[in-house]
């Protein structure tokens, strides 16, 4: 191979993918940001004139603020719940012996491959006022009248936690796999109690895994669409379902583009800064 073709080779190999990403990812995203600055009217449609009115409308209207706050609240709740459930479960899985470990790992992570619509449908069946959860709680005497979990934030949070908790388990699982079991044994031989080993030896080493799992869960929860649309119904809007409405029902595309741009910026900033912080703080773990 000549020196010239060796210099060219990497670009020839990555070229097709690069071209596709430039034309089909950066161009459409750029066009969306541009769209958010266009004028729109009920009868005139989209007018390609620069205006800030969509941005002013979204920022000043308390309805949009409410939707964004609800999205943030749901995403935070789902992240916390996923941590509370996912961290212990990953730890328990890691301590299982081989045949069971593989089987339960498949059961716990496998649902990631099942369509979100099918999984959410299950929660709609469980959570409805005549659903299984209500019947169970009533027959146990814990409830007198059925509670409507459907179309409520609680319902959305429960279903979203179910959809996203496997990501938390995966992330914690990965960092548990990197642990050296000898360190645990050393702590035990030095007289540490099991809880001290967990708290002072295991936990500090898996913190980066927990945090990066939390970032993934938060980002996916904040931009989730199908689950809040089905469980939350038409009334309980989050950012993603709001944008959907503006695009396909109200047909105010520029306004929907503002919502989408805000969501994109908020998430990219949140993900990039938290990943930076995690990597800097725990640099030694990522060597």
């Amino acid at each position, binding site marked *: 191979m000549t020196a010239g073709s060796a210099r060219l080779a990497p670009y020839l190999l990555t070229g097709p993918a690069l071209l596709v990403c430039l034309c089909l990812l950066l161009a459409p995203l750029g066009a969306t940001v541009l769209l958010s600055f266009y004028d729109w009217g009920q009868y005139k449609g989209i007018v390609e004139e620069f205006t800030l009115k969509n941005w002013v409308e979204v920022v000043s209207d308390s309805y949009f603020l409410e939707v964004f706050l609800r999205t943030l609240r749901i995403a935070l709740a789902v992240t916390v719940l996923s941590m509370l459930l996912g961290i212990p479960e990953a730890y328990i899985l890691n301590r299982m012996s081989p045949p069971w470990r593989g089987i339960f790992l498949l059961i716990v992570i496998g649902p990631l491959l099942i369509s979100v619509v099918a999984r959410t449908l299950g929660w709609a069946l469980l959570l409805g006022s005549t659903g299984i959860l209500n019947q169970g709680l009533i027959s146990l005497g814990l409830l007198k009248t059925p509670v409507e979990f459907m179309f409520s934030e609680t319902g959305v949070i429960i279903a979203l936690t179910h959809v996203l908790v496997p990501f938390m388990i995966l992330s914690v699982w990965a960092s548990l796999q990197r642990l050296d079991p000898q360190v645990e044994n050393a702590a035990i031989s030095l007289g540490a109690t099991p809880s001290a080993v967990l708290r002072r030896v295991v936990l500090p080493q898996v913190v980066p895994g927990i945090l990066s799992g939390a970032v993934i869960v938060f980002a996916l929860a904040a931009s989730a669409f199908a689950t809040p*649309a089905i469980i939350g119904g038409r009334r309980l809007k989050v950012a*993603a379902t709001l944008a959907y409405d503006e695009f396909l029902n109200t047909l105010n595309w520029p306004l929907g583009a503002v919502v989408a741009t805000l969501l994109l910026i908020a998430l990219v900033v949140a993900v990039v800064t938290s990943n930076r912080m995690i990597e800097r703080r725990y640099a030694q773990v990522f060597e």
Partner: protein
Amino acid sequence: MSRNGPLALAFHALFVSFILAPILIVCAVAFTPEGFLSLPTRGLSLRWFRAILDYPEFIRAFRDSVWLAALSSTVAIGLAVPAALGIVRYRFPGREAMTALFMSPLMVPHVVLGIAFLRFFSQIGLSGTFLGLVLSHVIVILPFALRLVLAASYGMDQRIEHAAVSLGANAATVFRRVTLPLILPGVVSGWMLAFINSFDEVTMTVFIASPSTTTLPVRMFLYIQDNIDPLVTSVSACLIAMTGVVMILLDRLYGLDRLFLGGGKA
């Protein structure tokens, strides 16, 4: 290694029931003999599975979904294999930026992608077309395909290729007879993961699908928005069963945790 205590096992049992409950309930309700949503307490019936056959929209959407997933994951793998080899073999200006760009669709919310493609395709006259669906799906699944091919390429011993070259093989032969067979597990798993992600995608597709070309998850989503009846549970049950088969295949072939975590030393 210490065992899990009874408390831990109780937590584990509760957690596994939490994970399985909504999936099992869908499958149980699908077998109801009644005309409304209920658990099959009066025996099992296949009437709602037969009802799928009378509802051609689901069948057509399923066929479109399979074609879409097969086409877009093949295109994505076709882009990912050379790109991965370029990234692994060479150090060149823009290498990190390019890798970040290829992986970036993972970070962009699918609802934003849906909006972006809806606008973009209506501008260039691709809205509502099957080609538009394929192109948008290629973008979304490229990171999954690329990550697994990258992991396989990093894990490959390049001296084997050098040996082939020194024995007189030309570049095409080396790729076909040496490189490709060595990275094949990564390529196959990458294709399957890309296929599943394309097949399951709903958030982005709901924006750009048209009534005539739509996918199964979108069709199910729109159906559920109107009303939930046993028909959609039997469709979901079929989907869950098929996914289960693929899941076990992938686990045998590659290991499910490695599949999601990127595997190897990427």
